[in-house]
């Protein structure tokens, strides 16, 4: 016996019943597949670009680092006027004398002469302004008035500056004493 509900169920059955399992048409399948593959390829290319970009970034960062680092490591520093000025202040004791100084001393020169030559070598050969200033100062303390006079033909720029400073200092002391 069939009731009204059964006939209503038949209606649902007829409306919802699938006629077998329909397959999507081949053209649609192929077209959609091509589109999805396009997305995958685009994603892959994007990843490759990102990788190449990061490698390039690393390379450029390395180049920049090298560029910044090179000037500080290469070449001998040039003595600046500030550096000289800082070393013009009198040191309490004469500094140690190197091996080269001992050899010069062996030639029986005056102590002042030895110090001056040593200072010349420090300045001209090794570019060590600090040691040169120290030796020149000691030389000026031990030297005679004639030796302390500025001689543009014999003195270098540092010695001339130190001699000038020394003479000014002495003048100032004399004025204060008077």
């Amino acid at each position, binding site marked *: 016996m069939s009731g009204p509900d059964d006939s*209503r*169920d038949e*209606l*649902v*059955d007829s*409306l*919802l*019943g*699938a006629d077998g*399992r*329909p*397959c*999507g*048409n081949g053209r*649609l*399948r192929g*077209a*959609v*597949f091509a*589109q*999805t*593959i396009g*997305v*995958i*390829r685009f*994603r*892959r290319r994007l*990843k490759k670009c990102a990788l190449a970009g990061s490698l390039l970034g690393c390379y450029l960062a390395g180049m920049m680092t090298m560029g910044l680092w090179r000037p500080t490591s290469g070449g001998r520093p040039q003595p600046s006027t500030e550096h000289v000025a800082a070393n013009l202040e009198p040191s309490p004791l004469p500094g140690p004398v190197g091996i080269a100084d001992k050899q010069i001393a062996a030639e029986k020169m005056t102590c002042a002469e030895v110090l001056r030559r040593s200072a010349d070598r420090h300045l001209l050969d090794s570019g060590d302004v600090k040691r040169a200033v120290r030796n020149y100062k000691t030389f000026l303390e031990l030297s005679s008035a004639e030796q302390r006079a500025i001689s543009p033909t014999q003195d270098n720029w540092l010695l001339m500056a130190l001699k000038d400073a020394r003479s000014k200092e002495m003048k100032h002391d004399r004025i204060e004493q008077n």
Partner: protein
Amino acid sequence: MDPEDRVQREEVLRRAVLAGDERAWQPWYHETFDDLYAYVLWRSGGRRDRADEIVQETWLTAIRHVRRFDPRKGSFRDWLRGIVANVLRHDLRQHHRRLKREQAAEKCIAVESEYKDRERQERIAVTLGAIPERQEAVLRAKYLDGLSVAEIAAAWKESPKSIESLLSRARQAFREYYDKEADHVRTR
């Protein structure tokens, strides 16, 4: 397939696709395509033109958002069906608006039987989108997958009686929404 094997396989495929491996995508796509198409066609009330559009939209959404797919939460097939439901909902809204605009012109041009066919398909699609998800799932298992009550009960790990009852409620809900939609169409 064993659930753990399924999760492992789909995770491997997902990673390969995300890495841009086309060979991984090819089998995954082809083995799922027919099943998805059948589902979309059923949900669209048998309208092939509409099903084609929905299927295309679904696959493009899936490939763009495949990163979000988590095999531990469900199978790839179920994830795709979730996307279909969203696409259909969006499409129905747009379709209603379009239909209102075209109604007058269509009445003049369309042949009566063609119009009725289209209207019926429209009502089925709307009704399937309106009924609760669990009821839609049981109707799908019954009518689209062609499973018997006993088979559904075994797959869902429930008693045949409860499935029978759910199926009955689903049919009733379908009828009610279908009739309501018919009234709605008549008053449009």
